[in-house]
């Protein structure tokens, strides 16, 4: 990010100025978000969801990986409580974002906190925590999160609709449902930095296959729990410093 768009250096004090700074900080991140929204629209249809369900999900759930998980599990006839539980597990990291932003939003009225919590995604959190932690503590700084979050929200809705329109024109023989697995591969591999994380992934993948016969599609929960436990148990094999 260049110096003139760095929100921590030139944070304006007015509400609109903060909002604009948030929008500017969000724009580069849209390069990754818009194609993902398009892909979600296409793969949601490929997974067997109706078009209205795909479009509604982008505003009701509003979370890329949660929505891809939803589409995959709905397509695999997984019962609703297991879908909701899996989405909850996929979302746990948002509790960390919530915890880290809470101190900056404490003084706001409840309606503001509800709105900002709804807009709190990975891509809105990343620039906002920089602004909050490094920038001046001005009374309007929550508008920065609003500007970043709303920019992302609007782009996500539009790209989902575009993806649905595109997906409706693509025949099933193109195997586009496989893009769900490919999305997860793209999210999984760059995030593995330690041996214990690799262990968590390998154990979870193996248990997911071995437990396919469990009733109510409980293999998902079984595999997630086994993987998390295996990762935690193998922590002592991680190197203390450098890349693992």
């Amino acid at each position, binding site marked *: 990010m260049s110096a003139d768009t760095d929100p921590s250096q030139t944070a304006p004090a007015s509400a609109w100025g903060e909002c604009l700074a948030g929008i500017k900080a969000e724009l580069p991140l849209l390069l990754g978000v818009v194609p993902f929204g398009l892909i979600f629209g296409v793969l949601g249809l490929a997974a067997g969801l109706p078009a209205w369900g795909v479009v509604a999900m982008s505003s009701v759930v509003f979370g890329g990986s949660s929505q891809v998980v939803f589409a995959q599990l709905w397509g695999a006839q997984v019962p609703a409580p297991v879908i909701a539980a899996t989405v909850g597990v996929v979302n746990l990291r948002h509790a960390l974002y919530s915890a880290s932003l809470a101190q900056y939003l404490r003084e706001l009225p409840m309606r503001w906190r509800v709105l900002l919590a*709804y807009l709190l995604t990975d891509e809105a959190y990343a620039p906002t925590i920089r602004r909050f932690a490094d920038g001046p503590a001005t009374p309007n700084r929550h508008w920065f999160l609003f500007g970043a979050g709303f920019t992302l929200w609007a782009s996500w809705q539009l790209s989902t609709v575009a993806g649905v329109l595109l997906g409706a024109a693509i025949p099933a023989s193109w195997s586009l449902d496989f893009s769900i697995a490919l999305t997860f591969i793209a999210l999984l591999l760059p995030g593995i930095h330690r041996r214990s994380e690799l262990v968590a992934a390998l154990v979870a*993948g193996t248990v997911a296959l071995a437990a396919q016969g469990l009733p109510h599609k409980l293999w998902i929960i079984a595999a997630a729990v086994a993987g998390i436990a295996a990762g935690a148990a193998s922590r002592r094999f991680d190197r203390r410093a450098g890349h693992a």
Partner: protein
Amino acid sequence: MRDGIGLVLTLVACGAVTFLTRFSFIAGGRWLALGPRLQALLRYVPPAVLAALIAPEIFVRDGVVALSLLSPRPIAALLAALVALYTRSVSLTIGAGLLALWLAQHFLP
């Protein structure tokens, strides 16, 4: 549960779960304590859940586990994994993976 009403209810449930996770600490209560042990566990949630979701997409066909590596989906997944590691781009990974899948489906028996 597979009809429109079922889909609406599942959507609302997942939306509520997602919102409540994001709202948890911002809501302001002190009812949630995120200790260091829980934080250490959270680190393993993404790799475990993602791998659990990936494996059946690659190795389960029509409800049967097939561990053959020389079939289109495992080959495409391996190539996509390499692209993901080197480019870190979701779009390029999906593009390369789909291309590999189409080629493998065309050329493998």
